[in-house]
C-alpha cells in the first residue's frame, strides 16, 4: 500500500481517534507519519469545527444555518458563526444561551451530557448570576474609563454581594468555613480594574 500523501510505501497505519466522524485510519510513509504525529496536539478547534460542520449540514437547511450563525450571546456578543469557525466559546453563559445547539456537539465529542465528577466546594453561581457578573464587570470598566468612580464603586459592591451570596449558599451546606473566608481576605477584583 502506498502512503496517502506520496509514492512511498505506507509503513504506518495510524488510527486517529480524535476525528469527529469517528476513528479514521491513515496510511502513511515514515516521513509523513512523523509529520502527522508532530502536528500540534492542541488543535481541538479543528475537530470542533469539523464536528459542527457535519452536524449542521445534516440537520439544517441553508436558511436555518444562516439564522443560527447570526444568533448572538447577549453577554459576550459572540455569534454562533464565530464559535463555529474558531471552536472557542466567548463566555460561561454561552453554554446556557446556545444550549440546544451545543448539546449534539457535546454528545458527539464526549458521548455524554452530564458532568459526574468533582464539584466546587463553594457553591457555583447560577448561570444567570455569572452572566450578571460579567455584564456588571464590563459596566464597571466603562464607568472607570469615564472616571465615574462612584458608579464603579457601586458596581464593585454589587459584584461582591453576588459572589458572597454564592459562598454563603455552600457554607450553609457542607463546606469548610475556612474556604469561604478566602473571598474576604483577598478583596474583590474591583480595585484591580481601577
Amino acid at each position, binding site marked *: 500500500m502506498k502512503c496517502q500523501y506520496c509514492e512511498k510505501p505506507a*509503513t*504506518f*497505519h495510524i*488510527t486517529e*481517534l*480524535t476525528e469527529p466522524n469517528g*476513528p479514521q485510519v491513515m496510511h502513511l510513509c515514515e516521513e509523513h507519519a*512523523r509529520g502527522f*504525529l*508532530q502536528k*500540534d*496536539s*492542541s488543535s*481541538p*478547534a479543528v475537530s*470542533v469545527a469539523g464536528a459542527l460542520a457535519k452536524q449542521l449540514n445534516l440537520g439544517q437547511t441553508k436558511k436555518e444555518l444562516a439564522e443560527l450563525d447570526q444568533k448572538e450571546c447577549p*453577554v*459576550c*456578543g*459572540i455569534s454562533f458563526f464565530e464559535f463555529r469557525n474558531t*471552536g*472557542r*466559546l*466567548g*463566555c*460561561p453563559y454561552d*453554554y446556557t444561551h446556545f444550549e440546544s445547539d451545543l448539546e449534539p*456537539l*457535546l454528545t458527539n*465529542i*464526549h*458521548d*455524554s*451530557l*452530564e*458532568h*459526574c*465528577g*468533582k*464539584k*466546587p*466546594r*463553594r457553591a*457555583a*453561581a447560577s*448561570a444567570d448570576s*455569572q452572566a450578571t457578573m*460579567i455584564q456588571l*464587570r464590563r459596566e464597571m*470598566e466603562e464607568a472607570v474609563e469615564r472616571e465615574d468612580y462612584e458608579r464603579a464603586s457601586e458596581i464593585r459592591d454589587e*459584584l461582591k454581594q453576588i*459572589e458572597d451570596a*454564592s459562598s454563603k449558599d455552600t457554607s450553609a451546606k457542607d463546606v469548610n468555613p475556612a*474556604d469561604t473566608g*478566602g*473571598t474576604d481576605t*483577598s*478583596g474583590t*477584583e474591583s480595585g*484591580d480594574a481601577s
Partner: protein
Amino acid sequence: MKRNTDFSELARNSGEWLRGTGPESDIVISSRIRLARNLADFPFIRRCSDEDRISIERTVRARMEAIEDWQDIRYVDIEQLSEIDRQFLVERQLISREIADADGSRAVAIDPHEQYSVMINEEDHLRIQVMHSGLDLNSAWDRINALDDKLEGAILYAYHQKYGYLTACPTNVGTGLRVSVMLHLPALVITQQIEKVFRSMQRINVTVRGLYGEGSQYTGDFYQVSNQITLGHSEEDLVSLVGDNVVPRIIEYERKARDFLISQGQKDLHDDVSRALGILSTAKKISSEETMHYLSKVRMGVNLGLINDVAVGTINKLFIHTQPAHLQKLHGRLLGSSDRNVERATYLQRHLSGSVGPGELN
C-alpha cells in the same frame, strides 16, 4: 510567592519529573495532569478586553498570594520575558507554546521543584498542571486535586450544574481534566509495531501524539497518551482509564518488542546503541534532531543493560538541556544555529564521557 525571572538556577538543575525514577521509568518518562478552570465573572479569554486580562491576572495573583504555604512559589510575568526565556519555559514544559506565543497580560506560577505550575490567561483563565516522574498518576491526581481545592477556596469558578466546569473549548468541559503520560517506545518503532498500539486503542477514547511539535525535529520515539473525553466520567475514572487500563498495555507491548529485539540479535542491538553513544560522546557538532535520535537509542540501551555507565536521569536531562533555549541559557548568551551545534556537542561530550557525574549539572 516570589516575583522571579532569573532562570539560570532553573536551567542548571533539572525538574523532579526528569529524575528518571518512579514506577515503570524505563518506559514512562512522566505523568502529567492538567485542569482547565475559568473565573465565573469574566468572559473566556477570546472575548476578554486587554483590561479584562490585566484584571484576571491581578485578581488571580492577589488570591494566590493569600494562599498559605505558597511563599516559595515563583511567579513569572510572561509578557515581560524575552523570547528565549519563554522558549526555555516551553522546553521545560512549565508553560504551553500557546501561552508563550500569545499577547497581553499572562503569567505562570511555578513550584520550585517543578512538580506543578499554574498558567494564567492561557486558553482558559487557569491551567493547573502537575508533573511527576514515571507512571505516578494517582499521586499526581491527589496533588492537583488539593491544589485545585486551594485555588477554589479563593476563586469563584465558572461552573454549571449539568455540564460541570465550563471551559473555552467544549472539548474540555466537565472535569477540565487532561491526563497525559509520556512514553518512550523505541522498540515498538523499530519493530514497526507502533501502528498496532494505535489500532488497539481505537475504541478506548484516548489520543496518542508524538512529543513536541517542533517543526521537523525528531521525536526521539516519544509518544504522549491522553484521555480524549472530559465530560461524563469522574476524574478518578479518567485517571484510571489512562493509568490502569491503557498505559500498562502499551508498556507490555514495548517490553515484548524489546525482548524480541534482544532475542533476534543482541550483538546487532548492542552495536547500534553503542554507536549511538559513540557519536554523542565524540561528535564535534551535532543538530538537535540527531541528538534526539541517538539519545533515544542510548536510553533504550541503558534500560536494557547494554550500556552501564550512563544514568537514565542523565539521558532524560540531556533531552531537555540540549534543546535550543536551554543550551543558550546554560551558555549564558544567544547562539546561532551553527554555534548551538558546536555547543551541544561539547555539552554532550562533557556529560557522557564521565567528566561530569550524574549528580553534577553543569
